[in-house]
């Protein structure tokens, strides 16, 4: 199984090429087109890990769909094309089995069965800012496909760095991190508009996105007619 990413940076499309017997799990709304020979199952992860409640939590907290679709090439080779909802880039990170990758819930798109997507890992919760801070932990070996809102920047952390949580896509395990407020006090932090930041230190890869989906949602959403609660 390998991913091919086209049309970066603004309107990326990823094609997962499957040989006979291979499969890929993809975030539920991502399918654009596919070979008709592929079978599609709705699943909750490899080996059905975790109960329904975990899935519901993932959906609610991660901003991600409740389900993943499993595309399987049984008899013959095939492909499935995947795209995120917003404009922006996609990137593939290759897991070597050494370090895990912590991925912001809404940034995850797809991975093969050789990669375990752990949804039990809850990340950070209980913050009042309204920003959904939910991380998936990808481990194992193989490629992980992620999307960004806007462009994606891959950085080598060596030392310390502060990243706005709305701009964070993923970072490697082994990096020390804590979620803190952007300014000194809670009130000034709230007023600064920066919300929560991730204070990271150590060495490893960090992926950030050049736009913040929640900021965009709030900017446009406030102009739309009200919906019924």
């Amino acid at each position, binding site marked *: 199984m390998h991913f091919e990413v*086209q*049309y970066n940076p*603004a*309107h*990326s*499309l990823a094609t997962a090429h499957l040989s006979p017997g291979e499969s890929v799990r993809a975030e*539920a*709304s991502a*399918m*654009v*087109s*596919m*070979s*008709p*020979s592929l079978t*599609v*199952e*709705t699943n909750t992860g490899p080996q059905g890990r975790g109960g329904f409640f975990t899935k519901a939590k993932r959906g609610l907290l991660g901003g991600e*769909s*409740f*389900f993943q*679709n*499993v*595309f399987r090439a049984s008899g013959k080779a095939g492909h499935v*094309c995947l*795209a995120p*909802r*917003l*404009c922006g880039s996609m990137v593939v990170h290759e897991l070597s089995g050494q370090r895990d990758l912590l991925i912001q819930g809404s940034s995850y798109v797809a991975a093969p069965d050789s990669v375990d997507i752990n949804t039990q890992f809850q990340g950070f919760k209980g913050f009042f800012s309204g920003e959904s801070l939910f991380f998936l932990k990808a481990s194992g070996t193989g490629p992980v496909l992620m999307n960004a809102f806007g462009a994606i920047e891959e950085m080598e952390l060596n030392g310390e760095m502060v990243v706005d949580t709305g701009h964070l896509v993923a970072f490697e395990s082994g990096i020390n991190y804590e979620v803190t407020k952007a300014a000194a006090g809670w009130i000034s932090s709230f007023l600064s508009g920066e919300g929560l930041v991730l204070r990271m230190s150590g060495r490893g890869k960090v992926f950030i996105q050049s736009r913040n*989906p929640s900021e965009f*949602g*709030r900017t*446009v*959403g*406030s102009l*739309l*007619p*009200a*919906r*019924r*609660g």
Partner: protein
Amino acid sequence: MQFEILDSPDFALLQLRMDTGDEVVAESGAMVAQDGQISVKTNVRGGLMGAAKRKLLGGESLFQNTFVAQADGQRLYLAAPSEGDMQSRDLGPGEEFFLTSGAYVAHIGKELQIDTKFGGVKGFFSGVGLFMLRIVGPGRVFYGSYGALHSVEIGAEGYVVDTGHIVGFTPGLSYKVRPFNGFKGLFFSGEGLVAEFQGEGTVFAQTRDAASLASFLHPFRPVQRGE
């Protein structure tokens, strides 16, 4: 008349250079800018009944604008509503091309026909977003996409495309719409349906779709409380 598609692939803009008497027909709302010596006629193509049917079935606007150059070297700029790419296709006499109604931007050629009856009924029962226009040459038709335009050659095996991502296809293909057997979320109508293509030809897909953006934005709408 000469044309060039500028700012492709992300924010395509069609630039036409027209000489006296040259004529371009465009979807209403497509005009971005024009030189002073171009006259504009708003017309109801295919008569009032035809246009009404097109509005109801095709989802595209009732009126189209015809631009006629009154002098040489006049420039006309046209754009599609969403960010993305634009392409054109030159059709010979009697040659067909199929576009989803929202993808049509403009055409050149007085004899070019746009038939909205095609796929109308089938589209009506298959949810929003699959009203196909049958374009018959001679002439050149311009079409736009939300996101990149991704073309796929279809062979004997056939191909499956999410209905919200279809831009158009060449003749030689037939399709039927069915629910996607995986989960795709059914928040907005039109999501969760796929078209299964058979035959030989090319399908053009767009890499983003409007329903997905709408479903992203929906939770950010203000909430109406009480009455």
